[in-house]
């Protein structure tokens, strides 16, 4: 069976599997949906958007045919508005707040946002202007949602901005970490271009600690913003992690973003460890790579998993199996050091721990073996400890400590925003929140310079 599939699935088929899965609105669908919007006053959708996009206004502009104005209204508040149109958990944000939830059905705000920004991408619109140079230089470390947003706002305000990106392409999570069938890389790269069009310099393949040094940034620039996001999936801490066939979900997604489609999955049995959004990505990516059977193993239950409802639904539609209350104890390899089995143990939930979630506890003697060909680790993301230490920033388990309003770290010239300051249980690690923090950091820096200039007068 496996061989048969391998023969059937060409590279083209695999590429097709990774094309954006949800069709975009056609012009008529967009118009019909836009016309349903009530154009509320003091609209709850605006308040529910972390970046505060004037949603009724951009929708009204779709209805009137002013698509350029619509896209500008979106991008004005959210420099990664095209990506967010695809990746935001809209049911929990703008669409969840839509007043029509109480009468009919909410406006599909994400789809409309995608329609307007896609128009802008297709028509190569330039929406924002470079501000008059004020002579200040800002370094930004990391070009993901937070870094790009800060860079764009600072560029508009007249700062000379240089962004340092360790990878070969800018965009961070949106470029590398979101499955391409949800967010094609081109979309994120367009947002990068928009920021570059404001005179922002983005240096790729520039890793702090290797290609450049934190101390130099701090001394050479007027301010530094650390927006480096998070790192790889942590080790499971069990035997067999270094076997062949064991993948890091984030690396796996990044490969497909770069259009490298492994043929190793075709016809195979894959097990994903974890049940967050990254685990869903790992699972749905495996399905698209041709895996015959994909299971998600989670040590808690459906009720505790952190994946969004729509992600869960999406995985189930893909045929992903969910196995609750199971944890891996070790990975067992064959004679070629390729993973062949997971020794699993059954769990039960006990009273909640300090994080408020039910605590999974092993059921003694319940171990069993599960035959697998591939294991994908997706149990969260590690922190950039080394980078944080290099800047000498105070942190808590790798979460950089910042002032709640100014995003200033313990170092007077260094700010931090986005996932590097995201603390579990405090809000959500969403691209849209990172974008907002990037904006706020830019304004805080601007305020600080304005204040010090006034002080000098």
């Amino acid at each position, binding site marked *: 069976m496996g061989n048969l599939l391998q023969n059937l699935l060409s590279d083209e088929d695999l590429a097709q599997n990774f094309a954006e899965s949800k069709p975009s609105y056609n012009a008529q669908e967009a118009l019909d949906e836009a016309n349903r919007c009530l154009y509320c006053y*003091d609209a709850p959708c605006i308040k529910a958007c972390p970046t505060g996009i004037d949603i009724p206004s951009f929708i009204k502009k779709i209805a009137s045919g002013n698509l350029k104005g619509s896209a500008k209204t979106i991008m004005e508040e959210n420099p990664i508005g095209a990506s967010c149109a695809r990746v935001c958990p809209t049911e929990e944000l703008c669409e969840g707040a839509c007043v029509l939830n109480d009468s009919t059905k909410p406006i599909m705000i994400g789809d409309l946002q995608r329609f307007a920004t896609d128009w802008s991408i297709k028509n190569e619109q330039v929406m924002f202007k470079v501000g008059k140079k004020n002579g200040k230089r800002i370094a930004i470390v990391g070009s993901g949602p937070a870094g790009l947003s800060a860079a764009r706002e600072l560029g508009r305000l007249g700062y000379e901005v240089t962004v340092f990106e360790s990878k070969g392409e800018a965009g961070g999570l949106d470029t590398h970490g979101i499955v391409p069938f949800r967010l094609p890389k081109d979309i994120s790269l367009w947002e990068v271009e928009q920021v570059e069009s404001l005179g922002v310099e983005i240096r790729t393949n520039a890793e702090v600690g290797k290609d450049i040094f934190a101390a130099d940034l701090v001394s050479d620039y007027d301010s530094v913003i650390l927006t480096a996001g998070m790192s790889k999936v942590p080790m499971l801490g069990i035997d067999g992690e270094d076997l062949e066939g064991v993948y890091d979900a984030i690396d796996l997604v990044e490969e497909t973003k770069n259009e490298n489609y492994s043929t190793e999955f075709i016809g195979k049995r894959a097990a994903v460890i974890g049940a967050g959004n990254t685990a869903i990505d790992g699972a749905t990516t495996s399905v698209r790579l041709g895996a015959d059977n994909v299971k998600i193993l989670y040590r808690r239950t459906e009720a505790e998993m952190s994946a969004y409802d729509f992600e869960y639904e999406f995985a189930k539609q893909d045929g992903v199996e969910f196995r609750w209350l199971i944890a891996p104890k070790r990975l067992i390899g064959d004679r070629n050091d390729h993973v062949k089995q997971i020794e699993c143990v059954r769990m039960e939930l006990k009273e909640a721990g300090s994080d408020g979630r039910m605590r999974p506890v092993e059921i003694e003697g319940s171990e069993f073996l599960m035959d697998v060909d591939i294991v994908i680790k997706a149990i969260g993301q590690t922190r950039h400890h080394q980078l944080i230490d290099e800047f000498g920033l105070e942190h808590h388990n790798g979460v950089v400590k910042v002032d709640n309003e100014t995003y200033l770290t313990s170092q007077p010239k260094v700010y931090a925003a986005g996932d590097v300051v995201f603390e579990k249980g405090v809000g959500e690690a969403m691209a849209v929140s990172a974008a907002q923090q990037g904006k706020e950091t830019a304004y805080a820096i601007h305020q600080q310079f304005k204040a010090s200039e006034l002080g000098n007068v």
Partner: protein
Amino acid sequence: MADISINFAGIESPNPYWLASAPPTNTGYQVQRAFEAGWGGAVWKTLCEPVLNVTSRFGAHHFNGQRVAGFNNIELVSDRPIEDNLKEIYETKKRFPDHPIIASLMVEPQRDKWHEIVKRVQDVGVDGFELNLGCPHGMSERGMGSAVGQHPDLVEKSTLYAKEVAEVPVITKLTPNITDITATARAAERGGADAVSMINTINSLIGVDLDTWNPTPNVNGKGAHGGYCGPAVKPIALNMIGECARQPDINIPISGIGGISTWQDTVEFMLMGSGGVQVCTAAMHHGFSIIDDLTEGLSNYLDDKGIASVSELVGKSVEKYTDWSNLDLNHRMVARINNDICINCNKCHIACEDTAHQCIDMLIDENGNDYLEVREDECVGCNLCSIVCPVEGAIDMVDLEPTEPPMSWNNRESALEMLNNK
């Protein structure tokens, strides 16, 4: 089941719905399809000396995604030979003897011309005539249509000429492109009309193309004013019908025309004095099958209200339609928001705040939930909030207990006059 048949000015019809004289009644094929679908009667597209038509001919006003809120046309009267039309009228009448066919006629306002056409058409057996004195475009430039209908004396004469030879009822169709339609209604009655029908279409230009800057509809880069109709004109038609119906000296039946699209519209037109109605745009938008709901909805309404015959509706609201100076100045009405139905879109608040009387507050209750409340002592009962509210039942307009006896402006003026004369 209520009786929805009517006798309009002596013309029996199985229901009050006639297709108006317009593109839907251009041929026997169409009218027969309409009768098969259930339309009560048809006013055949205007017979005249055949004309030449242009392309394009129609335009529409779309609003916020709703197609055809209004419609206009620059098509003229029938462009088919009269003998073809007469043959088809004869055949249609033979197939559908119980469905009235009214022949719409248009000639110059001369006795011999009216006599000739009335006699010629009468011979094939029609149930009545409708004199087209209202077409506002094209024909009016040739001294016919609204060029006649705008002159009460020509309306009277044309009606008189037709009546001199007509053996079946004559309905004079009036144009709304006039300051006071009651003047031409009276003229028609003086000329002996058995009924009037109103309104014909309204002078209009649908729009201008933003790229070509051509008027719409456009004919090789040019446009001309057309006749406006469809849902948007309903309030204009309803007023003109009401104005005529409430004149004590106008005592002939009115066939109501103008934007009728639903059975509810029909009920309103009949309550305001229409003895029957004519429909065109709704059929052009959706096809003849809409007659099913038009008749069934009307019948169910009558049953629900315990009314035996649709004719009982005719004119029942006319006495309620009056001059502003007869309205009660002491009547008090206010808006009340039903917070359990309200969805908090705040449209009422901003409408009131920006454009009315600043009396709807956005508040937060003890549980932290948003709610809206009307300050009733400052509410003038204008209806704006309930108009912009997107949810049925969220805002009620409530009558307050009167604190003073009713008093109209006229009451007030005559009371003041009495005081001054003492």
